[in-house]
């Protein structure tokens, strides 16, 4: 039998050793992890703008090449800061924590929003990052709009824990490609967002089909999450869009 003193000493030393080891690992690996997170973000942004051939190896040079400006905008649609130098990952907009800003927005506190401007074949593309809730956890994404904000160039989605094969399908090209060419404003210039329609867009009257995409069968709640995310986030950018289109 071991004495109580021994047990306490044993436990204390073991816990301190484990803590030291883990802190060391966390500190040593942090630069790699942050780089991966930044690269992942860049890939998402470029993917929404339909820039192909971006891998984790060439994401940084491609991002610096295609993204021409990164803006921080306030709720009234004014540009707070603009950044067009390299490296682009040092921009204030790139380092905005959208989750925190949306939380502030929900609490009616002042907030700022990031906006990325890419240039492809001489055309400006505006890329808006989004964040929302899926069925099991957060979902996020980017939506790329054409230079006068009327057409969707492309989208990108990611999720923390949606069901693989059901909600997880929002990440597949099959779902994302549906958004290309859809519009977020109707003919009268009213904001319509993009509706993710359960049962398919053929349920909508024909004039509205340009504002809708098919939901994923069996993933109604994730589809609703995507629907709400696009609507809620784009709404916040409307003042800026109104001023610049």
């Amino acid at each position, binding site marked *: 039998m*071991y004495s109580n003193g021994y047990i306490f000493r*044993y436990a204390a030393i*073991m816990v301190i050793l484990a803590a030291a*080891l883990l802190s060391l*690992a966390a500190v040593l690996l942090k630069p*790699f*992890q942050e780089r991966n997170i930044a690269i992942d973000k860049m890939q998402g942004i470029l993917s929404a703008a339909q820039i192909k051939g971006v891998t*984790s190896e060439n994401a940084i040079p491609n991002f610096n090449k295609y993204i021409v400006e990164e803006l921080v905008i306030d709720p009234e649609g004014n540009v707070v800061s603009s950044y067009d130098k390299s490296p682009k990952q040092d921009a204030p907009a790139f380092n905005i924590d959208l989750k925190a800003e949306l939380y502030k927005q929900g609490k009616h506190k002042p907030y700022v929003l990031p906006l990325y401007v890419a240039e492809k074949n001489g055309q400006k593309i505006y890329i808006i990052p989004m964040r929302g809730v899926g069925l099991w956890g957060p979902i996020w994404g980017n939506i790329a709009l054409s230079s006068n904000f009327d057409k969707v160039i492309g989208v990108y989605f990611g999720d923390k824990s949606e069901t693989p094969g059901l909600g997880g399908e929002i990440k597949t090209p099959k779902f994302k490609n549906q958004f290309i060419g859809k519009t977020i404003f109707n003919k009268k210039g009213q904001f319509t967002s993009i509706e993710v329609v359960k049962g398919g867009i053929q349920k909508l009257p024909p004039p509205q089909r340009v504002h809708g995409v098919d939901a994923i069968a069996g993933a109604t709640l994730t589809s609703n999450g995507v629907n709400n995310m696009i609507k809620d986030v784009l709404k916040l950018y409307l003042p800026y869009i109104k001023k610049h289109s």
Partner: protein
Amino acid sequence: MSTENQEREPLFSPKNMKLLTGPLNLNNPITVQVLGICSALAVTAKMKPALVMTIAVMIVTGFSNLVISLLRKGIPSRIRIIVQLVVVATLVILVDQVLKAFVYDVSKQLSVFVGLIITNCIIMGRLEAFAMGNKPWPSFLDGIGNGLGYGLILITVSFFRELFGSGTLFGYQVVPQSFYHFGYENNGMMILPPMALITVGVIIWVQRYYKRELIEK
């Protein structure tokens, strides 16, 4: 152990090899001991996460067995479960951090399941049943063997689930597009967790058909 005074045992003696290969078949942690079912359901919808999970679990079972076996003479028995948990948790967090640093996209897919290796009953089971009473090298082999045995089932299950559920293997399309034109559809049921349970059940059935000695009286 009786080998203490004998001549040095070769590293891969028949007895040690048995530790490594036993869990693959007759002593499989999933199909025979029926441990670790929960994570087997969660990560087997696609093959790639199943493979990475296998490697992660193998590393954790192997090294936690090794560490516990090295410490076994000093661990106060009253807090041994806590000690085991701390060792396992430390290893799991390390694996998670390394995955995040070097294979970020895979770690994104596995998300919470790497963290949940801590709760995998196979690991604690092997620590209690083997590492607490055996020398480090056999314990390490036992851990690796059990990780492999777990992974074998995981990969088999994910093979069938991905093939029939998504028509792909490791993300590559294997069911030809022409099949879909003739009305073939991916079976959405295969993607849902209950089908993992049924697939595991079928594997147990097949295994017991060939290994009659496993059938309970």
